[in-house]
């Protein structure tokens, strides 16, 4: 007889994981690795460290699964863990984020292998540029920006993930953008970032 086993829902997988089934949680990891890795990469600016941080995030999530509120979106909960962990890592680096003269290490964003090399190089350059600007910001300013642009979260969702008030999120987003705009204006030259064509134009 043919097996008609239905794939388990996220809730069922989480219930199994809570009962101590790491393989069920592995399926959850598979589904959410991309957004978690992206957040870690955008926060830390280093692919290898982002990998470590992603692993640590999922291990923490699995260990503290008992604290997860099923009424909340699982991704939001994991992103909360990830952002806190990344901020901790950044603080440990003991870098003075206030200084605009800092030149943190920027790694190229890993791209799908199927992409054309020319396209890949172009995307890498743009990604490098964005990551470069992002690396200049203090950790607390990066998180709302990443959550807004890469995840399309609302003020309320960002506030929930970061345990902040909505006005605080608004203020950080504005300050982050303003700081980036100031940096871009200062470094504007024919060969600089501003020479890239607008993606939406």
């Amino acid at each position: 007889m043919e097996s008609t086993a239905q794939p388990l829902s996220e809730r069922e997988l989480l219930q199994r994981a809570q009962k101590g089934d790491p393989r069920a949680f592995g399926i959850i990891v598979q589904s959410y690795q991309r957004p978690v890795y992206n957040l870690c990469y955008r926060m830390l600016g280093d692919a290898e460290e982002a990998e470590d941080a992603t692993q640590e995030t999922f291990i923490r999530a699995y260990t503290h699964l008992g604290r997860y509120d099923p009424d909340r979106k699982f991704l939001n909960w994991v992103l909360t863990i990830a952002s806190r962990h990344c901020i901790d890592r950044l603080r440990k680096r003991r870098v003075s984020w206030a200084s605009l003269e800092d030149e943190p290490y920027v790694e190229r964003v890993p791209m799908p292998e199927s992409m054309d090399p020319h396209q890949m190089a172009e995307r890498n350059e743009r990604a490098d540029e964005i990551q470069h600007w992002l690396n200049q910001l203090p950790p607390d300013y990066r998180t709302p920006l990443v959550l807004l642009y890469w995840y399309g979260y609302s003020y309320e969702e960002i506030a929930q993930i970061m345990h902040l008030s909505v006005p605080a999120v608004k203020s950080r987003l504005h300050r982050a953008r303003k700081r980036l705009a100031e940096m871009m204006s200062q470094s504007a030259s024919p060969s600089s970032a501003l020479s890239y064509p607008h993606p939406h134009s």
Partner: protein
Amino acid sequence: MYDCDSILQALSVHLDGAEGASDLSELRARAARAHCLELFEAMLEVHQRFAAAAMAEPPRDLAPGITRTLVWQHRRHQGLALAVLFLGLATTLIPTVWVIWAGIALYLDPGLVGQGLELLLQVVNLGTALLVALSTAAHLLSPIWITSFFTLVALVFLLMSLVLANQHHGRIVPAYSPLSSNGRFS
């Protein structure tokens, strides 16, 4: 009056797509009048760049690697829990035998009050050891709380034993001796 920072703040709200945001062309005109058009355009540029940025792709072996680590950690944890349970049961084996033996002795000679208290003390110890072992294995209660509670109970029994021992102290019961008072066998 045109305050540059308030214009940029309004632009930020507009870019976030929040409700009640001002019109972009109106904001641009205000920025031009406030002489902060350069920063205004740079902010728009930042927004466009970030909005177009793709998600970073994780390495292919990331999820399987995390799952392997989780499985390994789970097995290690299970092994540790079993080891604790085994050690707990092993350490309770001797008091268990003693409790049974002392219980039989007490049943045969109910006058042994001191021994009875000692037996209770041993029962408490046994219960503690078993609870610690089982709860550690099942992650039910913190071993610290259980041991602290039962240590207190054991201390109460110990104090009771001391009080009783003090009450009975001084009653010298002459032991039977086959020797007579002159040191010869009677």
